[in-house]
Protein backbone atom coordinates (compact mmCIF):
# COMPACT_ATOMS: atom_id res chain seq x y z
CA UNK A 1 0.00 0.00 0.00
CA UNK A 2 1.38 3.37 -0.96
CA UNK A 3 1.09 6.08 1.61
CA UNK A 4 0.69 9.75 1.02
CA UNK A 5 3.85 10.84 2.76
CA UNK A 6 4.88 14.46 2.78
CA UNK A 7 8.28 15.64 3.78
CA UNK A 8 8.37 18.91 5.49
CA UNK A 9 11.40 20.89 6.63
CA UNK A 10 10.04 22.91 9.50
CA UNK A 11 9.91 26.63 8.75
CA UNK A 12 10.44 29.22 11.47
CA UNK A 13 7.28 29.98 13.38
CA UNK A 14 5.57 33.22 12.56
CA UNK A 15 4.87 35.66 15.36
CA UNK A 16 1.13 34.87 15.31
CA UNK A 17 1.65 31.19 15.70
CA UNK A 18 4.15 31.88 18.44
CA UNK A 19 1.51 33.71 20.46
CA UNK A 20 -1.04 31.02 19.87
CA UNK A 21 1.33 28.37 21.06
CA UNK A 22 2.35 30.01 24.31
CA UNK A 23 -0.55 28.57 26.29
CA UNK A 24 -0.06 25.05 25.04
CA UNK A 25 3.68 25.35 25.46
CA UNK A 26 3.26 26.17 29.13
CA UNK A 27 1.02 23.17 29.52
CA UNK A 28 3.50 20.80 27.94
CA UNK A 29 6.53 22.19 29.73
CA UNK A 30 4.69 21.64 32.99
CA UNK A 31 4.40 18.02 32.07
CA UNK A 32 8.14 17.85 31.34
CA UNK A 33 9.49 14.51 30.22
CA UNK A 34 8.73 11.11 31.64
CA UNK A 35 12.29 10.85 32.86
CA UNK A 36 12.07 14.09 34.82
CA UNK A 37 8.68 13.11 36.14
CA UNK A 38 9.96 9.71 37.24
CA UNK A 39 12.98 11.28 38.85
CA UNK A 40 10.65 13.60 40.76
CA UNK A 41 8.53 10.66 41.88
CA UNK A 42 11.60 8.73 43.01
CA UNK A 43 12.77 11.72 45.02
CA UNK A 44 9.31 12.25 46.48
CA UNK A 45 9.06 8.59 47.45
CA UNK A 46 12.41 8.75 49.18
CA UNK A 47 11.16 11.31 51.69
CA UNK A 48 8.52 9.17 53.45
CA UNK A 49 10.83 6.13 53.20
CA UNK A 50 13.65 8.05 54.85
CA UNK A 51 11.30 9.30 57.57
CA UNK A 52 9.98 5.76 58.21
CA UNK A 53 13.51 4.35 58.42
CA UNK A 54 14.56 7.11 60.82
CA UNK A 55 11.58 6.69 63.14
CA UNK A 56 11.82 2.90 63.21
CA UNK A 57 15.55 2.75 63.87
CA UNK A 58 15.48 5.46 66.51
CA UNK A 59 12.51 3.74 68.22
CA UNK A 60 14.57 0.56 68.58
CA UNK A 61 17.35 2.59 70.15
CA UNK A 62 14.95 4.27 72.56
CA UNK A 63 13.42 0.88 73.50
CA UNK A 64 16.90 -0.50 74.23
CA UNK A 65 17.66 2.38 76.60
CA UNK A 66 17.16 1.95 80.38
CA UNK A 67 14.01 4.10 80.68
CA UNK A 68 12.29 4.23 77.30
CA UNK A 69 9.75 7.03 76.89
CA UNK A 70 6.63 5.27 75.60
CA UNK A 71 5.01 8.54 74.56
CA UNK A 72 7.90 9.11 72.15
CA UNK A 73 7.58 5.59 70.76
CA UNK A 74 3.84 5.99 70.26
CA UNK A 75 4.34 9.26 68.41
CA UNK A 76 6.98 7.64 66.21
CA UNK A 77 4.66 4.75 65.34
CA UNK A 78 1.85 7.13 64.43
CA UNK A 79 4.25 8.96 62.12
CA UNK A 80 5.48 5.70 60.57
CA UNK A 81 1.89 4.80 59.72
CA UNK A 82 1.20 8.21 58.22
CA UNK A 83 4.36 8.14 56.12
CA UNK A 84 3.62 4.66 54.79
CA UNK A 85 0.21 5.92 53.64
CA UNK A 86 1.89 8.91 52.04
CA UNK A 87 4.29 6.62 50.12
CA UNK A 88 1.34 4.56 48.94
CA UNK A 89 -0.43 7.69 47.69
CA UNK A 90 2.61 8.70 45.66
CA UNK A 91 2.77 5.28 44.01
CA UNK A 92 -0.96 5.34 43.28
CA UNK A 93 -0.69 8.75 41.65
CA UNK A 94 2.23 7.52 39.55
CA UNK A 95 0.31 4.45 38.45
CA UNK A 96 -2.74 6.47 37.51
CA UNK A 97 -0.57 8.73 35.44
CA UNK A 98 0.91 5.81 33.53
CA UNK A 99 -2.18 3.65 33.18
CA UNK A 100 -4.58 6.51 32.66
CA UNK A 101 -8.26 6.15 32.35
CA UNK A 102 -9.96 4.62 29.32
CA UNK A 103 -12.50 7.42 29.54
CA UNK A 104 -9.83 9.96 28.67
CA UNK A 105 -9.06 8.27 25.37
CA UNK A 106 -10.20 9.93 22.20
CA UNK A 107 -9.82 9.21 18.47
CA UNK A 108 -6.73 11.11 17.39
CA UNK A 109 -4.85 11.79 14.20
CA UNK A 110 -1.26 10.77 14.96
CA UNK A 111 0.18 13.20 12.39
CA UNK A 112 -1.61 16.15 13.98
CA UNK A 113 -0.42 15.06 17.40
CA UNK A 114 3.18 14.92 16.13
CA UNK A 115 2.93 18.35 14.50
CA UNK A 116 1.59 19.93 17.64
CA UNK A 117 4.36 18.37 19.70
CA UNK A 118 7.08 19.40 17.27
CA UNK A 119 5.84 22.99 17.26
CA UNK A 120 6.52 23.04 20.96
CA UNK A 121 9.95 21.50 20.57
CA UNK A 122 11.38 23.72 17.83
CA UNK A 123 13.02 26.06 20.33
CA UNK A 124 14.57 23.15 22.15
CA UNK A 125 15.88 21.70 18.88
CA UNK A 126 17.36 25.05 17.84
CA UNK A 127 19.10 25.29 21.20
CA UNK A 128 20.65 21.90 20.42
CA UNK A 129 21.55 22.94 16.83
CA UNK A 130 19.45 20.09 15.59
CA UNK A 131 17.34 19.91 12.44
CA UNK A 132 13.84 18.47 13.01
CA UNK A 133 12.34 16.89 9.92
CA UNK A 134 8.81 15.51 9.64
CA UNK A 135 7.64 12.74 7.35
CA UNK A 136 3.91 12.57 8.00
CA UNK A 137 1.23 10.42 6.45
CA UNK A 138 -1.72 12.75 5.83
CA UNK A 139 -4.30 10.00 5.39
CA UNK A 140 -4.00 8.06 8.62
CA UNK A 141 -6.91 6.32 10.26
CA UNK A 142 -7.50 7.65 13.80
CA UNK A 143 -6.09 5.90 16.85
CA UNK A 144 -7.79 5.76 20.24
CA UNK A 145 -5.34 7.26 22.71
CA UNK A 146 -4.94 9.25 25.88
CA UNK A 147 -3.39 12.25 24.21
CA UNK A 148 -1.29 13.46 27.15
CA UNK A 149 0.28 10.04 27.67
CA UNK A 150 1.28 9.54 24.05
CA UNK A 151 2.63 13.11 24.01
CA UNK A 152 4.72 12.15 27.02
CA UNK A 153 6.17 9.19 25.14
CA UNK A 154 6.90 11.33 22.09
CA UNK A 155 8.44 14.10 24.16
CA UNK A 156 10.61 11.56 25.93
CA UNK A 157 11.81 10.03 22.65
CA UNK A 158 12.61 13.43 21.12
CA UNK A 159 14.48 14.61 24.21
CA UNK A 160 16.44 11.33 24.20
CA UNK A 161 17.30 11.86 20.53
CA UNK A 162 18.44 15.45 21.19
CA UNK A 163 20.73 14.16 23.91
CA UNK A 164 22.01 11.30 21.75
CA UNK A 165 23.07 13.81 19.08
CA UNK A 166 25.32 15.83 21.36
CA UNK A 167 28.49 13.96 20.22
CA UNK A 168 27.66 14.66 16.54
CA UNK A 169 29.00 17.88 14.92
CA UNK A 170 26.25 20.48 15.30
CA UNK A 171 25.60 21.07 11.56
CA UNK A 172 24.91 17.38 10.94
CA UNK A 173 22.45 16.67 13.75
CA UNK A 174 19.11 15.55 12.43
CA UNK A 175 15.99 14.02 13.93
CA UNK A 176 13.25 12.62 11.72
CA UNK A 177 9.82 12.26 13.28
CA UNK A 178 7.32 10.40 11.18
CA UNK A 179 4.00 8.64 11.03
CA UNK A 180 2.95 5.82 8.75
CA UNK A 181 0.25 3.25 8.32
CA UNK A 182 1.49 -0.34 8.49
CA UNK A 183 0.13 -3.21 6.37
CA UNK A 184 -1.65 -4.69 9.41
CA UNK A 185 -3.57 -1.44 9.94
CA UNK A 186 -1.51 -0.22 12.90
CA UNK A 187 -0.34 3.37 12.94
CA UNK A 188 3.36 3.83 13.61
CA UNK A 189 4.92 6.95 15.11
CA UNK A 190 8.70 6.92 15.00
CA UNK A 191 11.57 9.16 16.10
CA UNK A 192 14.91 8.50 14.45
CA UNK A 193 18.24 10.25 14.82
CA UNK A 194 21.62 10.07 13.11
CA UNK A 195 23.51 9.81 16.39
CA UNK A 196 25.81 6.99 17.49
CA UNK A 197 22.90 4.54 17.84
CA UNK A 198 22.23 2.07 20.63
CA UNK A 199 25.19 -0.12 21.62
CA UNK A 200 24.51 -3.86 21.06
CA UNK A 201 25.20 -4.59 24.74
CA UNK A 202 22.51 -2.13 25.75
CA UNK A 203 19.74 -3.22 23.36
CA UNK A 204 18.31 -6.07 25.38
CA UNK A 205 18.15 -3.99 28.57
CA UNK A 206 16.72 -0.92 26.86
CA UNK A 207 13.24 -1.10 28.40
CA UNK A 208 14.32 -2.49 31.75
CA UNK A 209 13.28 -0.19 34.61
CA UNK A 210 16.17 1.63 36.34
CA UNK A 211 18.60 0.65 33.58
CA UNK A 212 20.32 3.79 32.32
CA UNK A 213 23.43 4.80 30.41
CA UNK A 214 23.18 8.46 31.43
CA UNK A 215 25.02 9.77 34.47
CA UNK A 216 21.91 11.53 35.80
CA UNK A 217 19.25 9.30 34.21
CA UNK A 218 16.59 7.52 36.19
CA UNK A 219 16.34 4.53 33.87
CA UNK A 220 12.60 5.00 33.82
CA UNK A 221 11.92 7.02 30.66
CA UNK A 222 11.79 4.16 28.17
CA UNK A 223 10.37 1.69 30.69
CA UNK A 224 7.39 3.97 31.33
CA UNK A 225 7.02 4.75 27.62
CA UNK A 226 6.83 1.01 27.00
CA UNK A 227 4.15 0.61 29.69
CA UNK A 228 2.10 3.47 28.26
CA UNK A 229 2.19 2.14 24.70
CA UNK A 230 1.35 -1.39 25.80
CA UNK A 231 -1.60 -0.09 27.80
CA UNK A 232 -2.87 1.19 24.42
CA UNK A 233 -2.59 -2.38 23.05
CA UNK A 234 0.37 -1.16 21.07
CA UNK A 235 3.98 -2.19 20.70
CA UNK A 236 6.98 -0.10 21.56
CA UNK A 237 10.35 -0.86 20.07
CA UNK A 238 13.72 0.08 18.70
CA UNK A 239 15.44 -0.58 15.38
CA UNK A 240 18.76 0.69 14.04
CA UNK A 241 18.42 3.69 11.79
CA UNK A 242 20.07 3.72 8.34
CA UNK A 243 22.77 4.69 7.67
CA UNK A 244 23.43 5.46 11.35
CA UNK A 245 21.69 6.19 14.62
CA UNK A 246 18.67 4.88 16.45
CA UNK A 247 14.96 4.72 15.66
CA UNK A 248 12.30 4.29 18.35
CA UNK A 249 8.75 3.59 17.35
CA UNK A 250 5.31 2.95 18.78
CA UNK A 251 2.65 1.08 16.86
CA UNK A 252 -0.93 1.56 17.92
CA UNK A 253 -3.98 -0.21 16.43
CA UNK A 254 -6.16 2.09 14.38
CA UNK A 255 -9.90 2.31 14.95
CA UNK A 256 -11.21 0.10 12.18
CA UNK A 257 -14.69 1.02 10.98
CA UNK A 258 -14.82 3.99 13.27
CA UNK A 259 -14.25 6.35 10.37
CA UNK A 260 -17.33 7.58 8.65
Amino acid at each position, binding site marked *: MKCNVETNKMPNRSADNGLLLTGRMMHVSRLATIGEMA*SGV*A*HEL*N*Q*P*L*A*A*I*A*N*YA*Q*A*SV*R*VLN*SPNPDMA*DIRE*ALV*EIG*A*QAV*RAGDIIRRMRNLVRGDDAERAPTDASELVEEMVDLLQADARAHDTQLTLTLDRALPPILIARVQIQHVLLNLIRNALEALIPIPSRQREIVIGTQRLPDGDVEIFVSDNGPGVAPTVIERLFEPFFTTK*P*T*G*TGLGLAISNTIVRSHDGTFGHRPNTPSGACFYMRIPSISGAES
Partner: protein
Amino acid sequence: MKEKPPAVIIVDDDEAVRSSLRFVFKSVGLAATAYPSAQAFLTAYDPDQPGCLVLDVRMPGMSGLALQEQLNLKGAMIPVIFISGHGDIPMAVEAIQHGAFDFLQKPFRDQDLIDRVQRALAKDESNRSALKERSRIRERFESLTPRERDVLALMTTGKANKVMAAELGLSQRTIEIHRSHVMEKTGASSLAQLVRMAMDLNWTNVT
Protein backbone atom coordinates in the same frame (compact mmCIF):
# COMPACT_ATOMS: atom_id res chain seq x y z
CA MET B 1 32.34 34.12 77.49
CA LYS B 2 30.08 31.15 78.11
CA GLU B 3 30.33 28.33 75.56
CA LYS B 4 27.10 27.29 73.84
CA PRO B 5 26.42 23.55 73.79
CA PRO B 6 26.83 22.01 70.32
CA ALA B 7 23.70 21.39 68.26
CA VAL B 8 22.83 19.50 65.11
CA ILE B 9 21.13 21.81 62.63
CA ILE B 10 18.79 20.16 60.13
CA VAL B 11 17.76 21.91 56.90
CA ASP B 12 15.22 19.93 54.87
CA ASP B 13 12.05 21.05 53.11
CA ASP B 14 10.18 17.87 54.07
CA GLU B 15 8.41 18.14 57.42
CA ALA B 16 8.36 14.35 58.00
CA VAL B 17 12.08 14.02 57.30
CA ARG B 18 12.84 16.94 59.62
CA SER B 19 10.90 15.63 62.59
CA SER B 20 12.13 12.06 62.09
CA LEU B 21 15.72 13.34 62.14
CA ARG B 22 15.01 15.32 65.29
CA PHE B 23 13.72 12.10 66.85
CA VAL B 24 16.88 10.23 65.79
CA PHE B 25 19.14 12.83 67.40
CA LYS B 26 17.00 13.01 70.51
CA SER B 27 17.33 9.20 70.87
CA VAL B 28 21.10 9.62 71.29
CA GLY B 29 20.82 12.72 73.46
CA LEU B 30 21.90 15.27 70.86
CA ALA B 31 20.25 18.68 70.70
CA ALA B 32 18.83 19.43 67.26
CA THR B 33 17.14 22.38 65.62
CA ALA B 34 15.45 22.22 62.23
CA TYR B 35 14.71 24.69 59.44
CA PRO B 36 12.35 24.15 56.49
CA SER B 37 14.48 26.11 54.00
CA ALA B 38 17.98 27.37 53.35
CA GLN B 39 16.71 30.96 53.64
CA ALA B 40 15.15 30.32 57.05
CA PHE B 41 18.44 28.87 58.28
CA LEU B 42 20.51 31.76 56.90
CA THR B 43 18.24 34.31 58.58
CA ALA B 44 18.77 32.62 61.94
CA TYR B 45 22.42 31.73 61.30
CA ASP B 46 24.70 32.26 64.30
CA PRO B 47 28.40 31.75 63.55
CA ASP B 48 29.10 31.30 67.28
CA GLN B 49 26.80 28.30 67.54
CA PRO B 50 29.00 25.20 67.59
CA GLY B 51 27.64 22.11 65.87
CA CYS B 52 27.17 20.67 62.41
CA LEU B 53 24.73 20.99 59.55
CA VAL B 54 22.62 18.16 58.11
CA LEU B 55 21.50 19.45 54.75
CA ASP B 56 19.20 18.16 52.02
CA VAL B 57 20.78 18.64 48.59
CA ARG B 58 17.53 19.26 46.73
CA MET B 59 15.21 21.89 48.10
CA PRO B 60 12.90 24.35 46.38
CA GLY B 61 14.21 27.92 46.56
CA MET B 62 17.84 27.77 47.56
CA SER B 63 19.31 24.28 47.13
CA GLY B 64 21.64 22.67 49.63
CA LEU B 65 24.58 23.29 47.31
CA ALA B 66 23.71 26.99 46.99
CA LEU B 67 23.50 27.25 50.77
CA GLN B 68 26.93 25.62 51.09
CA GLU B 69 28.27 28.23 48.68
CA GLN B 70 26.75 31.06 50.75
CA LEU B 71 28.32 29.64 53.90
CA ASN B 72 31.68 29.31 52.16
CA LEU B 73 31.43 32.98 51.13
CA LYS B 74 30.75 33.95 54.75
CA GLY B 75 33.84 31.98 55.76
CA ALA B 76 31.68 29.75 57.94
CA MET B 77 33.52 26.66 59.10
CA ILE B 78 30.57 24.58 60.33
CA PRO B 79 30.91 21.02 58.95
CA VAL B 80 28.16 20.10 56.47
CA ILE B 81 26.75 16.60 56.01
CA PHE B 82 24.61 16.29 52.89
CA ILE B 83 21.70 13.90 52.62
CA SER B 84 20.03 13.26 49.30
CA GLY B 85 17.81 11.01 47.30
CA HIS B 86 18.44 8.57 44.50
CA GLY B 87 20.45 9.68 41.48
CA ASP B 88 22.14 12.68 43.03
CA ILE B 89 25.68 11.29 42.88
CA PRO B 90 27.06 14.08 40.63
CA MET B 91 25.70 16.59 43.15
CA ALA B 92 27.39 14.65 45.94
CA VAL B 93 30.72 14.85 44.16
CA GLU B 94 30.28 18.59 43.72
CA ALA B 95 29.36 19.02 47.38
CA ILE B 96 32.44 17.13 48.54
CA GLN B 97 34.64 19.14 46.17
CA HIS B 98 33.32 22.30 47.80
CA GLY B 99 34.34 21.07 51.21
CA ALA B 100 31.33 19.11 52.46
CA PHE B 101 32.25 16.97 55.46
CA ASP B 102 30.28 13.92 54.31
CA PHE B 103 27.42 12.64 52.20
CA LEU B 104 24.59 10.13 52.77
CA GLN B 105 21.90 8.79 50.45
CA LYS B 106 18.30 8.62 51.69
CA PRO B 107 17.08 6.37 53.18
CA PHE B 108 20.09 5.52 55.32
CA ARG B 109 20.93 3.53 58.45
CA ASP B 110 20.49 6.10 61.18
CA GLN B 111 23.61 4.79 62.94
CA ASP B 112 25.62 5.84 59.86
CA LEU B 113 24.22 9.34 60.18
CA ILE B 114 24.84 9.45 63.94
CA ASP B 115 28.46 8.30 63.49
CA ARG B 116 29.06 10.96 60.87
CA VAL B 117 27.41 13.64 62.98
CA GLN B 118 29.55 12.69 65.99
CA ARG B 119 32.68 12.96 63.83
CA ALA B 120 31.49 16.29 62.42
CA LEU B 121 30.84 17.65 65.92
CA ALA B 122 34.33 16.57 67.02
CA LYS B 123 35.78 18.24 63.95
CA ASP B 124 33.86 21.44 64.64
CA GLU B 125 35.07 21.48 68.23
CA SER B 126 38.70 21.02 67.23
CA ASN B 127 38.32 23.68 64.51
CA ARG B 128 36.87 26.11 67.02
CA SER B 129 39.50 25.46 69.70
CA ALA B 130 42.30 25.74 67.13
CA LEU B 131 40.82 29.05 66.03
CA LYS B 132 40.56 30.27 69.60
CA GLU B 133 44.13 29.20 70.35
CA ARG B 134 45.30 31.06 67.26
CA SER B 135 43.57 34.26 68.24
CA ARG B 136 45.02 33.98 71.75
CA ILE B 137 48.51 33.67 70.30
CA ARG B 138 47.86 36.53 67.90
CA GLU B 139 46.88 38.76 70.84
CA ARG B 140 50.15 37.92 72.55
CA PHE B 141 52.15 38.69 69.42
CA GLU B 142 50.31 41.96 69.04
CA SER B 143 51.35 43.01 72.55
CA LEU B 144 54.98 43.22 71.38
CA THR B 145 56.57 46.68 71.10
CA PRO B 146 57.95 47.78 67.70
CA ARG B 147 61.49 47.08 68.88
CA GLU B 148 60.54 43.62 70.11
CA ARG B 149 58.91 42.96 66.75
CA ASP B 150 62.17 43.87 65.01
CA VAL B 151 64.03 41.44 67.22
CA LEU B 152 61.35 38.76 66.67
CA ALA B 153 61.72 39.13 62.90
CA LEU B 154 65.44 38.61 63.10
CA MET B 155 65.08 35.75 65.59
CA THR B 156 62.78 33.86 63.26
CA THR B 157 65.34 34.09 60.49
CA GLY B 158 67.86 32.50 62.85
CA LYS B 159 70.21 35.47 63.30
CA ALA B 160 72.70 35.40 66.19
CA ASN B 161 72.50 38.09 68.88
CA LYS B 162 75.74 39.68 67.68
CA VAL B 163 74.41 40.02 64.12
CA MET B 164 71.08 41.44 65.36
CA ALA B 165 72.90 43.95 67.54
CA ALA B 166 74.88 45.14 64.53
CA GLU B 167 71.82 45.29 62.23
CA LEU B 168 69.65 47.18 64.70
CA GLY B 169 72.46 49.34 66.10
CA LEU B 170 71.89 48.13 69.65
CA SER B 171 74.11 46.53 72.26
CA GLN B 172 74.11 42.76 72.62
CA ARG B 173 72.89 43.20 76.18
CA THR B 174 69.81 45.13 74.93
CA ILE B 175 69.13 42.46 72.31
CA GLU B 176 69.23 39.82 75.02
CA ILE B 177 66.67 41.75 77.08
CA HIS B 178 64.31 42.21 74.08
CA ARG B 179 64.75 38.58 73.23
CA SER B 180 63.70 37.39 76.64
CA HIS B 181 60.69 39.75 76.51
CA VAL B 182 59.66 38.24 73.18
CA MET B 183 59.85 34.73 74.62
CA GLU B 184 57.98 35.76 77.75
CA LYS B 185 55.18 37.68 76.02
CA THR B 186 54.52 35.09 73.33
CA GLY B 187 54.73 32.21 75.79
CA ALA B 188 57.03 30.28 73.47
CA SER B 189 59.20 27.78 75.30
CA SER B 190 61.84 27.49 72.60
CA LEU B 191 63.00 29.29 69.49
CA ALA B 192 61.58 26.40 67.41
CA GLN B 193 58.12 26.91 68.95
CA LEU B 194 58.31 30.66 68.44
CA VAL B 195 59.08 30.14 64.75
CA ARG B 196 56.17 27.71 64.42
CA MET B 197 53.76 30.17 66.09
CA ALA B 198 54.88 32.97 63.81
CA MET B 199 54.38 30.75 60.78
CA ASP B 200 50.92 29.63 61.95
CA LEU B 201 49.87 33.24 62.33
CA ASN B 202 51.41 34.17 59.01
CA TRP B 203 53.14 36.82 61.09
CA THR B 204 54.99 39.49 59.19
CA ASN B 205 56.81 42.27 60.90
CA VAL B 206 54.74 45.43 60.83
CA THR B 207 56.49 48.41 62.37
